């Protein structure tokens, strides 16, 4: 049976997988429908697109993911395929091995469609820090898609990919999902193997799905988890795979609204959408009450010590000795190091390496790194205490809607504030999801843009989290078709 490409890409990933399983859709045709769209990408969402469907595309289609191809953030290592983490220092680098999570997805029937653009080494909230040019938001191509997984979010929103994976260190899945009007899940730290993910901040980085809807997120997330990866010491056994989300109400569900993350600094349109979603939740039977996360206001400051500290060490391996860019005609070792890293890294990466190096320096360690770790512990304790009273903590995902390209590139602090509502969950290592809650006007334009609603749960409660998100999603009835038309 033959289908039009528009019809095929109109299907959610779960529906496409079901169609393949039912014999109504050919996996090769499915792959090609997306491949040709991704290859014609005008958003710069992709940095590499597969030339053809893998030879065994049909073979994998029997797996739970039904042969539905997946777009993968550039920083996941993929054997023989460029894996550059958005950085010129890794331009053209093709690793000899594949990240565990990408292998698991391929094994479950999701072949690699392409590699998506990102902020360099996942450092940024707009994808403007990519060494390969910015990605544009499919809702308005003069605006950013968010970041750092902006390429993955834009590709899914524009239906250039059925679904995608990204990574979240302080909000890098949830914030671009919010800005692009899609679903983004940051799992519990340790739920998904980090082996083969080019590291930004090891104690925070976590891979997760970016999808059109909550059902797709549950399906893709299930395939990313499983038995602990023996190659990642910080990974954990993930319990059984999740059932398809089906909850229609929220009766008996207690939602906590932290004053610290829902007040000052949030755009009025975003707050309005957030309040409207809380009203919907009440209508579905949820109890909505204020809760306290007393240390959450310090999360961003702690994050910008810890993440750069780890990054300064994680990025030391890019020294020009074994792979990637090496500055030519250096006269000695030191000049080879300094020139390679001077030329190869972008400004934001260099800024964070310097921040992190400083924070770890002898004499400053206790005042910066040590103190930030104590704040991190306090924040985790805040959440643990809140979860004694509440099933989920809810906040807006990002303080604003998508902003114009270039609006915040000269003001790092303004850019960092994008992560204000997402960083606390990252520091606590708990799962959190962003779902589209509607559209809101931007303060600097008239076109309505997507807003994200964030729900956070205790560790390993992704099943309940996805179920609650599904109930809200059904009640919200968000229409994302405008983004697909734009592309």
């Amino acid at each position, binding site marked *: 049976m033959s289908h039009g490409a528009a019809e095929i890409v109109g299907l959610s990933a779960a529906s496409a997988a079901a169609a393949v399983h039912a014999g109504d859709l050919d996996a090769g045709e499915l792959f090609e429908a997306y491949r040709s769209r991704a290859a014609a990408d005008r958003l710069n969402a992709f940095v590499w697109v597969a030339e053809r469907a893998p030879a065994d595309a049909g073979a994998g289609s029997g797996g739970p993911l039904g042969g539905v191809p997946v777009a993968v953030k550039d920083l*996941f290592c993929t054997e023989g395929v460029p894996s550059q*983490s958005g950085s010129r220092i890794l331009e053209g680098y093709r690793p000899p091995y594949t990240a565990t999570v990408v292998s698991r997805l391929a094994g479950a029937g999701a072949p690699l469609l392409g590699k998506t653009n990102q902020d360099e080494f996942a450092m940024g909230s707009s994808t403007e820090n990519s060494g390969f040019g910015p990605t544009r938001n499919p809702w308005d191509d003069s605006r950013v898609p968010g970041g750092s997984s902006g390429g993955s979010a834009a590709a899914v929103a524009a239906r250039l990919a059925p679904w995608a994976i990204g990574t979240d260190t302080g909000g890098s899945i949830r914030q671009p999902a919010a800005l692009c009007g899609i679903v983004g899940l940051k799992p519990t730290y340790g739920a998904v193997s980090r082996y*083969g993910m*080019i590291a930004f901040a090891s104690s925070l980085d976590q891979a997760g799905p970016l999808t059109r809807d909550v059902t797709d997120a549950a399906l893709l997330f299930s395939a990313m988890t499983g038995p602990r990866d023996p190659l990642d010491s*910080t990974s954990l056994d993930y319990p059984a795979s999740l059932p398809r989300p089906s909850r229609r109400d929220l009766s008996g569900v207690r939602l906590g609204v932290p004053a610290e993350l829902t007040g000052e600094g949030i755009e009025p349109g975003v707050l309005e959408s957030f309040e409207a979603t809380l009203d919907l939740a009440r209508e579905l039977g949820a109890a909505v009450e204020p809760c306290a996360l007393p240390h959450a206001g310090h999360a961003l400051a702690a994050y910008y010590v810890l993440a750069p500290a780890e990054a300064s060490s994680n990025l030391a*391996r890019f020294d020009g000795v074994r792979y990637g860019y090496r500055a030519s005609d250096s006269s000695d*070792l030191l000049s080879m190091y300094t020139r390679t890293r001077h030329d190869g890294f972008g400004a934001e990466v260099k800024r964070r390496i310097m921040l992190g190096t400083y924070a*770890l*320096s002898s004499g400053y*360690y206790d005042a910066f790194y040590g103190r930030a770790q104590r704040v991190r512990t306090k924040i985790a304790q805040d959440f643990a205490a809140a979860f004694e009273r509440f099933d989920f903590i809810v906040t807006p995902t990002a303080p604003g809607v998508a902003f114009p390209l270039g609006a915040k590139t000269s003001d790092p602090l303004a850019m960092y504030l994008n992560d204000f509502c997402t960083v606390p969950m990252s520091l606590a290592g708990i799962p959190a999801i962003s779902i589209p809650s509607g559209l809101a006007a931007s303060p600097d334009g008239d076109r309505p843009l997507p807003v994200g609603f964030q729900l956070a749960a205790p560790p390993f409660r992704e099943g309940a989290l996805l179920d609650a998100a599904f109930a809200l999603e059904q009640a919200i009835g968000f229409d994302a078709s405008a983004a697909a038309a734009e592309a």
Partner: protein
Amino acid sequence: MADLEVVIGLEIHVQLATATKMFCSCALSFGDPPNIHTCPVCLALPGALPVVNERAIHLGLMIGMALGCELAPRSIFHRKNYFYPDSPKGYQISQYDEPLCRGGELEGVRIHRVHLEEDAAKLIHLGSSGRIHGSQTSVVDFNRGGTPLVEIVTEPDLRSAAAAREWLELLRATLRALGVSDVNMDEGSLRADANVSLRRVGASELGTKAELKNMNSFRFLERGIAAEVERQRAIVEGGGEVEQETLHFDPASGQLTPLRSKEDAQDYRYFPEPDLVPIAITAEMLDAARSAMPELPAARAQRFESEFEISGDRARQLAFRSELGDFFERAVAADGGAAAVHARRIADLLTGEVLARLGDSDPASSRLEPAALAALAGLLADGAVTATAAREVLDALIADGGDPAAVIAARRLGRVADSEGLAELVERAIAADPDAAEQVRAGNAKAIGALVGPIMRETRGRADGAELQRLIREALGVGGD
């Protein structure tokens, strides 16, 4: 000028004899073609993560137990950050303020700490000098990179270069008995740095220390420390002050050249390794380490002393060089094991004549068989061979192997018995030197040597000296004593 006291502490790096590297599954190797034992982890490819080798923890616990350390129920790894091509990640994974083991003591030298870490890769500078200066090209061999290391740090409890050497030999014997390492200084599986300082006798504060590197044999360690002690002594006695620095010992010239001074000290920006979870020691891990513990040199020395009734010094000499202890035990087993009657003589031969011939090398690598040494001890005890002739027998056994009785028979080295005409030899000697005979008769006991000497020469030492003297006195009608 008050007397100066030498203060030495050692930092020892031991490559563990695991099958695979510390944080990946590449095989350990020595001398293989470069870069064949590598993988994404030990090449620090983007995205690769370390996984702790559990066997290395087991061996580390055994070392901690052998040294009487306190074993941490929870310890963590840190990153030690520095840029150098032998460190592909840009940091070494090591332990910092929460090591696997603390405290402990071995033969009077206190142990400060024992921790796990990974070895660096090997940097080779092409060109004439072999050092980075003056070299146009440097290449890296990552085969060694990531080899598990245990670092053992002592307190500054050693007081001389010789004591440092002896103690390090004991440590090596201990590690070898544990089977945790090849402990081969030539190949770098055992490496020692020394912190050396001087202070006035009686002072409790430590003087400024210099750190000595690259002493890749016991001899060089002793020589390097001795040279450094003399250098510092000259400075102090000249009214100067020792500066804190790191020195490289050149065994060829015996010179110490500065590597870096205190001002160049690096800031390693240690922080907890986020890619690894803490090492939590379980009761099962402790049981496994405990049940794998062999007899250690100190205990072995005590056993030798009590079981075989040999002196304490002799017992330690054997036990602290485990290859000597092993050879001794095999010889004693050939002599009848618990019923051995020649153990003391075997010990004397081994630590005396055998060691004099073999020096630092392992007797088991010569052609001398432990059973042959036991047999020789028996022949000596029975008087079948004299001590002098036994030396010649030993030379033959070490060079060619074989059985001592056969050597004695083939070379006619057996003790000259009466039946072989000892009495006749005595008569001839008296006849040849009547003056000496007269003096002996007159009561000059020493003069008997002039009569014994020619007979010994004639029999190539095969005559029993005491028996010979008795026969001469009898022939001259002089009574015994």
